[in-house]
Structure formats: structure tokens, C-alpha cells
């Protein structure tokens, strides 16, 4: 079944123009993306073993996706044996309903969360708030955008579109409303200190902690979380109930497989050898133990993933959400994450969103957000065939949805005219006649249909008085002309 993802109601042209008209957003996004892309390159350059490791990690993920169902069963059995409750959930509604009734049973009111793209995908915060729960994000970036009531613009750095000054302003505003002192300056240290102080109270007061999972190990029944802030540790251990919300694609077969891939989120994402915190959770607090939650619930979510298994797009499910493809993507650097209109952005977002939610969902994504420069596939540690997927998704869209009939006709005609030498000559003759009406100062400045898009911002030279083809033909028929120096360029 197709999944369900949040969607910005604004149409593509509005989202795009909004982003392009915001120089500060573009500068912020561009700066973060370049910094992370550079860090990744340096990390690999200084770590030769990283390359072999990457391949081993990719293979581990691919093996898991190829045998997903038995691994999920094994994971459920292991986690249950460890004392966790495991639930297979179809989509957003099932996940929210489960947590809401869990909260009702526990008399729980306050929820803290660590960063999770899946819960963004499920629009979980909004659903829990609608049911009367108070939800607090505790990842610094997520905390910022929650205060701003925004969605993440980058998969690793959710507030990448905001700079320090903007963040200081929203913190001050929050402090004023709570009647507490604000951050002492807009330097990183004071900003983090302010958030830390505010969040500490939230951790201690929380009834339920919700985290995602970076990996799930079937062999041992282990939930693995990697963060650089340590907030997931607190979310998973301080509140009496811990709920893990994880995509079914997060499962790995063995502990060895985990070892192969565990460095990748940090290495490809931020250019560190390992994230600062790696949290391993195998079950709730053991009887007699002093730490850990009383209850552990693990929700394994489909939301449009199963239909991809075994198909040409299955490699998309090996994505580890490292963001490397975002950072190198030229289009992403121009428009940032919000323009994509849903949870995931960058190359993987433009490919995966319609795969999860259906080809009619944000159909502009495969078409309008990729120049096919291939930077993403070079950067992706999992070798996901992103450019191929862009092209085949476009083909599927052409085949299945049909395009505007004028576009179709343009391609048909264009294709026919350029598919044989004789037709090509006819094309040249027509184009020469037609171009006279589209010139200014010796340059082409207009064209019909979608071809006109070119001329909104660029010129084109007219067709040469004698093309290379024509020159060649003339030369072949006249021996006197066989000096190549006269070739037109």
C-alpha cells in the first residue's frame, strides 16, 4: 500500500520562487551543505580503510533489504524475548493511535523526542498534539525548528536554513515568554547552553520518550541510535516509557553487519569517523536494575516501503539518511529542503517521496529538482542509483500519467525530425525559415512552447548559414574545397 507523507499545500512554482527569492536561506543552506560535503571528502581522504568499509556496509544493507521479512520476524522474536513489545504498524494513523492509547493507559502527558526523520514523515508531533499530548523535540536543530513551527530543511541539520542570529532571536523570544533569561550572546556556546538548560527540565518531567532508530540488529534484537548530542540517550533512558518508531528498512542481519555500517552515518554525513554517541538498546530495564525505562515499545513502520521490495527501486531502502547526497546536490543548494514540499529533500527525497507516496504525489519532484549531474551517486555511501531512478521515474511518469499533450507532441515531433538524416534536413530548412521571426541583434531570443523557457534568461546563436553537415557535403562534391582549414566551427 502506498504510504502517506505530509505535503506543503503550496504548488511547486510557489515553493521554488519562495526559496529563490530568499537570499539568506540560500546562503545558509549553501554554507552548511558545502561545509558538510567538504568534511566528508576530507574524512575519506584521511581514512583509506573507510572505502572498503563503505562497500562492506553497503553490502550488509543490501543483504538485509533482500531478506527483509525473515529478518523482521527474527528481530521481533529477539526483542520480545528481551522484554520489549514489538508492533508492526502500517502508517501514520496506526503509529499515532498506538502511542495515544499507550499514553492514556500510563496517564502520560509529556513526551520528549530525539531526532527522527520517520516521525517527521508520519507527521507524528502534530497527531500527538491533536490528541492533547505535549511533545518536545530535544535535538538542538529540531528544537529550533519546533519553536519556529517549521519542518526540517536538511536531513542531518534540520535548521540548516537558519543562521545564528535568527536562532538567538527565537531563543530570546522563547525565554521572554517563559520569564527566564535568554541566551547571553549569539555565539554557538551560549545558544547551546540556553537550549541545554531548557531541555534538561523537559527530560526530567517527561512521561514518554520517543526515538527513531538508525539500525536494528535482528540477530541480537538491538536498537541502535547514533547522535552527536547525546540527547537520544536521555530520551531513551530518563522517561519511564521508551517508544522506538523505526522504518522496516532499518533492520540488519548480524552484529558484524552493524559493525560494517556503524561508522557510515557520521563518516558520510559530517565527516567524523564515528558519531559522538552510539546508543545500544536491547530491552527495558531488567528486574532489579536501576536504569532504563520500565517499558520499551518498538513500532516497525511500513508507510509505503514494502511495495518497493524486490523491485527496481529496492536500493532506495538501503538509505541510511546520511545526507551526503543533499550536500553535493546543486539544486538542493539553490532551493533548500522546504521547496521539496514534504519530509525528505535532496536527491533521495526527490526519488523516494513519490516511491513511498505514489507517482501522483508531488509529481514535480523527479522532473524539476534534478539536472542529472550525477554528484549524488558519487557521494552516496550506499551506491543508490539515484540518477537512474530519476530517469526511470520520469519515464514512468511520461508513460503512466501522460504529460501535457503539447509537451508530448513537442518531443514526438522533435524526436521524429532528428531520427533520420532526411528529416533533419527538413528540420534545418524549417528552422531557418522560422528563426527569422525569433531574432534580435543576430541572436535567437524566442522559441515556441516549453522550448521558450530557455529564452527567458538566455540567448542562442542562430543556425549557421552553412552547417558542418552542409559544409561536409559541399566539400565531398567539390575536390577544390578539400582543405579542412575552412571548416566552419
Amino acid at each position, binding site marked *: 500500500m502506498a504510504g502517506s507523507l505530509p505535503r506543503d499545500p503550496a504548488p511547486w512554482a510557489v515553493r521554488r520562487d519562495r526559496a529563490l527569492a530568499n537570499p539568506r536561506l540560500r546562503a545558509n543552506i549553501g554554507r552548511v551543505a558545502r561545509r558538510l560535503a567538504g568534511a566528508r571528502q576530507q574524512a575519506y581522504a584521511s581514512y583509506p580503510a573507510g572505502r572498503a568499509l563503505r562497500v562492506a556496509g553497503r553490502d550488509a544493507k543490501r543483504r538485509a533489504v533482500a531478506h527483509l521479512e525473515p529478518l523482521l520476524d527474527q528481530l521481533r522474536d529477539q526483542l520480545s524475548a528481551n522484554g520489549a513489545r514489538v508492533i508492526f504498524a502500517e502508517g501514520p494513523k496506526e503509529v499515532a493511535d498506538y502511542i495515544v492509547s499507550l499514553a492514556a493507559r500510563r496517564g502520560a502527558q509529556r513526551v520528549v523526542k530525539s531526532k527522527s526523520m520517520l516521525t517527521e514523515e508520519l507527521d507524528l508531533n502534530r497527531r500527538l498534539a491533536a490528541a492533547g499530548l505535549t511533545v518536545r523535540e530535544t535535538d538542538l536543530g529540531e528544537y529550533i525548528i519546533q519553536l519556529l513551527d517549521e519542518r526540517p530543511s536538511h536531513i542531518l541539520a534540520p535548521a540548516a536554513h537558519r543562521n545564528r542570529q535568527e536562532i538567538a532571536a527565537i531563543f530570546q523570544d522563547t525565554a521572554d515568554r517563559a520569564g527566564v533569561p535568554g541566551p547571553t550572546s549569539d555565539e554557538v556556546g551560549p545558544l547551546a547552553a540556553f537550549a541545554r538548560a531548557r531541555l534538561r527540565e523537559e527530560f526530567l518531567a517527561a512521561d514518554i520518550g520517543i526515538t527513531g532508530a538508525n539500525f536494528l540488529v535482528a540477530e541480537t534484537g538491538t536498537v541502535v541510535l547514533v547522535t552527536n548530542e547525546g540527547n537520544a540517550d536521555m530520551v531513551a533512558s530518563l522517561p519511564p516509557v521508551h517508544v522506538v518508531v523505526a522504518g522496516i528498512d532499518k533492520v540488519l542481519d548480524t552484529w558484524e553487519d552493524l559493525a560494517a555500517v556503524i561508522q557510515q552515518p557520521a563518516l558520510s554525513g559530517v565527516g567524523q569517523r564515528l558519531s559522538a554517541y552510539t546508543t545500544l538498546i536491547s530491552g527495558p530495564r531488567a528486574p532489579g536494575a536501576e536504569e532504563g525505562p520500565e517499558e520499551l515499545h518498538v513500532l516497525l513502520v511500513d508507510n509505503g516501503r514494502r511495495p518497493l521490495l524486490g523491485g527496481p527501486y529496492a536500493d532506495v531502502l538501503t538509505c541510511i539518511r546520511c545526507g551526503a547526497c543533499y550536500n553535493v546536490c546543486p539544486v538542493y543548494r539553490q532551493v533548500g529542503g522546504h521547496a521539496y514540499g514534504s519530509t525528505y529533500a535532496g536527491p533521495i527525497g526527490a526519488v523516494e517521496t513519490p516511491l513511498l507516496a505514489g507517482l501522483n504525489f508531488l509529481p514535480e519532484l523527479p522532473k524539476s529538482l*534534478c539536472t542529472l549531474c550525477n554528484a549524488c551517486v558519487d557521494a552516496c555511501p550506499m551506491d543508490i542509483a539515484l540518477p537512474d531512478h530519476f530517469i526511470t521515474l520520469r519515464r*514512468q511518469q511520461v508513460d503512466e500519467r501522460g504529460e501535457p499533450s503539447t509537451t508530448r507532441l513537442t518531443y514526438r515531433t522533435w524526436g521524429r525530425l532528428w531520427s533520420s*538524416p532526411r528529416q533533419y534536413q527538413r528540420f534545418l530548412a524549417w528552422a531557418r525559415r522560422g528563426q527569422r521571426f525569433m531574432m534580435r541583434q543576430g541572436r535567437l531570443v524566442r522559441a515556441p512552447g516549453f522550448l521558450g523557457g530557455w529564452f527567458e534568461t538566455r*540567448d542562442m546563436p542562430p543556425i549557421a548559414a552553412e552547417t558542418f553537415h552542409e559544409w561536409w557535403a559541399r566539400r565531398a562534391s567539390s575536390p577544390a574545397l578539400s582543405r579542412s582549414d575552412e571548416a566552419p566551427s
Partner: protein
Amino acid sequence: MAVMERRGARVAFAAGQTCCGQFAYNAGHWPEAWGMAKNLLEALDTLPQPGPEAARTTVGLSGSCVAMVREEYPKLLDWAADQPGWDTSWPVRYARVAGRLLEFSQWLGRAVPAPPPPEAASPTRIALHTGCHMRRVLEAGGEAARVIETLGLTVAIPEDEDQCCGFGGTYAMTEPKISTALADAKLAALQATGAEALVSCDWGCLLHLGGRLSRRGAAWPVLHLAELVDLGDRGDLSPARLAQVGQFVREDP
């Protein structure tokens, strides 16, 4: 042609060729792309080539087109094999054509060097733009810089050189705003090198960047590598000459 002949090549031209079809393939219009691909394969395969088979090379003047034939045609052939009108001879013909196909700077890098230019070249700075498919699909990005240096010129590599110029085939027409934002960023980085002229091995990128400069009323010479090498061979690399040859609307010879 002149450049190739100076390096001892006997040149033939497959007059039946039109386009490799990449623009349609990338946009998802594969029947049209396959029509153009068949025409190109036919033209290149039936080309009467001089010299023994082993010495035959087909040279393409745009990295992206060569990448299309070398790396994407196999996928197009796979698809076409399930379409009506399929002919099992296509894979054989394809293998023959693709096996001898090189991009121009790759060929230049391997060709015998031309006779040295009559007078010493001036140490002009040339900003080099390497197209994305040239860089990542063909993995042949370094050759052009070496070729330019052997002409006695300085190669300037812009900041963020691996970022796309925004051409992307019909993407330039369907998403002109993003495409242009990318062109402007690329041009800013290229011009910040202080180079006399822009050179690339991809006509697509050049048309897009040159077209943008032209619309902005900026006269910065834009040349294909072949044009630059031709001037170099003649020992005629003065800035004035670069400006003349690198005009957006080429003068007829």
C-alpha cells in the same frame, strides 16, 4: 578537423548523424530517444572509415554525448529489447560503435602531439569548466587541463568546480529559474578566476553559459577546447584572437 589532421589523423564524417537523443532519454521520452539512438548507431556503424579497423576511432565533441553512448545506451538497449520492432543486431552494432568511441580531449591526450606552434604562446589564463558527465560518468575530467597546459596556457579551476552549471538538457527549458541560478553561480566562480576566456569540452554547457552571458550583455570569450587548440596550433592565442573566435554568435568563415 584541422586539429585532428595536424595530428596525422585521416578524418571521415558520418553525415547521417543528428543527435544522441540524451535530451529525450533524460526527460523520460525513451521511444524518441531510441529513434535518435538508432540513427546515430547506424550512421557511426556504416561510416566508411579510413585505415585498418584497429586504428579506427570515433571522436565525439561533447563529453556528455559520449557518456550517453558509452554508459546510458546499454540501458536504452535493454529497454528497447522489449519493444516492438526490436532487431537483435543492435547490441552487436552498439558494441562495435561504442568500442571505438572517445571524447575529443581523451583522443587529444592520446594523439601524437602536433608540430610546435610557430611562435611562443602567451601565458594567458583559461578558465576550464568540466561538464558533469565528463567528470563523473566518463571519468575523463583531467585530460583537457593537460591539453591546455601543453599549449603554454595557464589553467584556472574555479571554486566549486564540481558543481553543475545547470544546463541539464531540457531541464534548462523546463526549469529556467533554477537552471539560470546555477549558471550565474557558475559564471561568477569562473570569472572570479580572472581568466581571459572560458573553455569546456561540452557544447551543451557552453551554449547555456554563453547564452546567459550574451543575455546579460557580457562579452567574455567562450570556446570549445577544439577551437582553442586550433588557435594554439597556429600560434595565435592573443587575447584579441580569443575574443574574436569566442564570440557567442560565431562569424561564418
